[in-house]
């Protein structure tokens, strides 16, 4: 029996068209990678909550720390994201983000006055780590790097609004409310670490 070459081609085409499961948690808005990136931050608590914690911490440390964080976090996020995208693999376990929750939430809850260099270093570390994971995730999912710009833009807006809001707060009880929010984020981070070590998520 002679085989028609088109039949083999059909089989190969069918194989390539099979929808392979992709577990990337990147958001698809249908509006393009920029909006996908913006949506990603607001729908991904593992990225959003550490950004919120850093913004609260920067706000508690005054206007100078807030201004530095406002530009350092997005810049580091973009840098880390591009590096992660270039490498194409996260190389780190996902539970490493629990460290951001614990450290930033814990410092916010403790309300310790930090030198502006300390807040800047934390902002850079946060941006590099989470940006790296985002960039690697985008590359693994075969998406466009433009999504990073959306994420970074959203990060900028969140830090700007929250840090400025906390700097603006005057009554003492409002500072306590910010500390309570920090303790909640740290608590979530501790549970997240536990889930990660248990291998549930």
């Amino acid at each position, binding site marked *: 029996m002679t085989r028609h070459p088109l*039949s083999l081609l059909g*089989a190969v085409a*069918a194989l390539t068209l099979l929808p392979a499961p*992709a577990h*990337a948690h990147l958001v698809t808005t249908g509006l393009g990678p920029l909006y996908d990136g913006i949506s990603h931050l607001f729908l991904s608590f593992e990225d959003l*909550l550490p950004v919120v914690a850093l913004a609260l911490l920067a706000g508690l440390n005054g206007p100078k720390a807030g201004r530095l964080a406002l530009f350092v976090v997005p810049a580091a996020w973009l840098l880390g994201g591009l590096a992660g995208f270039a490498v194409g693999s996260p190389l780190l376990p996902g539970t490493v983000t629990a460290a951001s929750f614990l450290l930033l939430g814990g410092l916010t809850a403790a309300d310790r006055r930090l030198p502006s260099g300390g807040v800047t270093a934390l902002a850079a570390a946060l941006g590099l780590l989470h940006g790296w994971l985002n960039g690697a995730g985008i590359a693994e999912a075969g998406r466009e790097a433009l999504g990073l710009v959306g994420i970074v833009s959203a990060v900028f807006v969140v830090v700007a609004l929250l840090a400025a809001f906390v700097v603006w707060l005057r009554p003492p009880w409002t500072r306590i409310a910010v*500390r*309570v929010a920090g303790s909640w984020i740290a608590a979530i981070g501790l549970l997240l670490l536990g*889930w990660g070590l248990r291998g549930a998520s």
Partner: protein
Amino acid sequence: MIRDRAPRPSAEAVLALLLLLAAVPVYAHEQSGQAAGFLTGLKHPVSGLDHVLAMISVGLWGAQLGAPAMWLLPVVFPMVMAFGGFLGLLGVPLPGTEIGIAVSAILLGLMVALEARPPVWVAASLVGFFGVFHGYAHGTELPAGENALLYSVGFVIATGCLHAVGIGIGLAHRWTMGRVALRIAGAVIALAGVYFLWGAVS
């Protein structure tokens, strides 16, 4: 006898047809169990009366103690409770968890009923100690298929809101009748704790 036979489809063609018909689930961009995980976490602390009464009594006692304890306890408690959940997730044994929860309702209720005013560090230590039991028992019960992070978010938010309810009710401490009402509420919580303890040891 020679018959006219229809051409047989090739094996590749059959395979191609079957592959095209194969329905493989696509998980891309789908985040299953997200809302369910958050809602389960949110509901969990309010689904057990023992947990609810203990959380509210923390807020009541904090309101009686006034600043800084009123604000310190809600800052400390979520982290200590999460530490209890962390121990549970790691599988570290904590014997007598249900008894610890019942005793927490008794002691915290008594503190409110007696309007006890120990040093802040004693109050924080007492609340923190029992927070470990609550976190251990309640922080680790994630139903299969639900998102662990969002379960944790819901759980911590609900617990914090219970504290806020307690503090809100505790603001009645400003008035004489309110002070009496709070002490009665504390006694009721302690009695409920005795009931929980009875159930835990029987």
